[in-house]
């Protein structure tokens, strides 16, 4: 199983029936592919839709029905549309149960940096700051390391997305929580040992007595 699939499958297990869920661009988008069929989850697209469905069949796309990246999507039965004030009212107002976002860095206290690299990449924060500030649970889905460098750092060196810590980080190697304000190793990926995780993690991790293997 490749890194992205491990991350997406593990994140999908965090979703519960009735949840309103917002998925970011990249690995987070893949999560929708692994939601168990008996689970009734509402996906929000922040450009104004609850009930986001899969990419339409060839020739069936509508130019006025897209995801937040402008790509064609479909709408499931029971879907509803709304304006951007409503959309971000849902997000900031705590009505979104789970948001899944990509990350550049997460630090030992659970702070996320995911919107810019000064001097290199300044795309703008889009909806990320509102999502991290307002969603009930914030899950970061990202690779554990990039070019051999840990993305779980002691302290974020990139500009923060929010002062509010995230709930969970799911990587291709581990699940890390921040209960009590300290990065805690909750699970390891199949075939990955605790020592292996520690070897590629810059941040100090709390290691409980037992660290179970991720269920995928």
């Amino acid at each position, binding site marked *: 199983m490749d890194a992205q699939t491990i991350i997406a499958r593990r994140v999908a297990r965090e979703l519960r029936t009735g949840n309103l869920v917002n998925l970011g661009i990249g690995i987070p988008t893949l999560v929708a592919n692994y939601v168990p069929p008996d689970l009734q989850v509402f996906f929000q697209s922040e450009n*104004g*839709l609850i009930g986001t469905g899969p990419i339409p069949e060839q020739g069936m796309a509508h130019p*006025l029905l897209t995801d937040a990246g*402008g790509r064609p999507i479909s709408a499931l039965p029971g879907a509803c549309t709304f*304006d*951007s*004030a409503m959309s*971000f009212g849902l997000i900031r107002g705590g009505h979104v149960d789970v948001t899944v976002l990509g990350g550049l860095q997460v630090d030992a206290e659970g702070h996320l940096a995911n919107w810019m690299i000064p001097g290199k990449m300044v795309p*703008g924060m889009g909806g990320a700051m*509102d999502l991290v500030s307002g969603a009930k649970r914030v899950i970061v889905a990202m690779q554990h390391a990039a070019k051999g460098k840990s993305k779980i750092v002691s302290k974020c060196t990139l500009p923060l997305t929010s002062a509010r810590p995230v709930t969970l980080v799911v990587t291709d190697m581990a699940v890390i929580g921040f209960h009590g304000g300290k990065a805690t190793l909750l699970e390891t990926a199949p075939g990955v040992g605790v020592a292996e995780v520690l070897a590629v993690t810059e941040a100090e991790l709390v290691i409980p007595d037992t660290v179970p293997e991720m269920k995928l």
Partner: protein
Amino acid sequence: MTLDADQSDAAIRREHPVPVTPAIKRLMTGVPIMKAISLEEAVAMVPAKASVMVGGFMGVGTPERLLDEVVRQQKKGLALISNDAATPGKGVGKLFDAVLVSHLTASHIGLNPKAQQQMLTNQIAVDLIPQGTLVERIRAGGCGLGGVLTPTGVGTTVAEGKRQIEIDGKTFLLETALRAQFAFVHAFLADYLGNLAYALTARNFNPIMAMAADTVIVTAEHIVPVGVIAPDHVVTPAPLVDYLIANG
């Protein structure tokens, strides 16, 4: 005291006569009240360096024909307010292709390399604002509010230079209201009065911006008789619309 229904109705009519003005008579007989104007006329009203809000999200729900005409008439130095910079050739992206923007207020420009390049070479000044804050600032501008208090951005670079206000132990940023001289709005349906309804994800910033500009100019995919949009389905009420662009 009780009255039977007829007496009550007659009494109310005597006390509160409903004026039937020529305009209401025209409306009742289906004669259009709002005259659609040409793109050329509408855009000619926009001076160079105007502040303009443009609806749409990554070019979806953007009044493309108005932007094409802005490019044709070469309206330079615009202060643009829009969610994003779209992509080259699409939506507000066309304004960056033609280098007509001098100031941009948006939440995301990452998918338009031209806008990024113009920012990095200081051809345009850019205010990047969290999307929820951007839409609330516009909403405040349209609703007579001085601003809004939001938790978004507290403890980040977004908070720099802004007033922070603590309410019940929670910190908020004071984000001020945003208005513009013009709003370019795209609707799915517009009726002869100017009532608007939107489709699917093309609604986004459009109805919010229709509240927040001195002059509101609308393109619609379909212009329909009054009554086709049911009262419950009107999203933007007609009095907010100043000009409707003729179709066809």
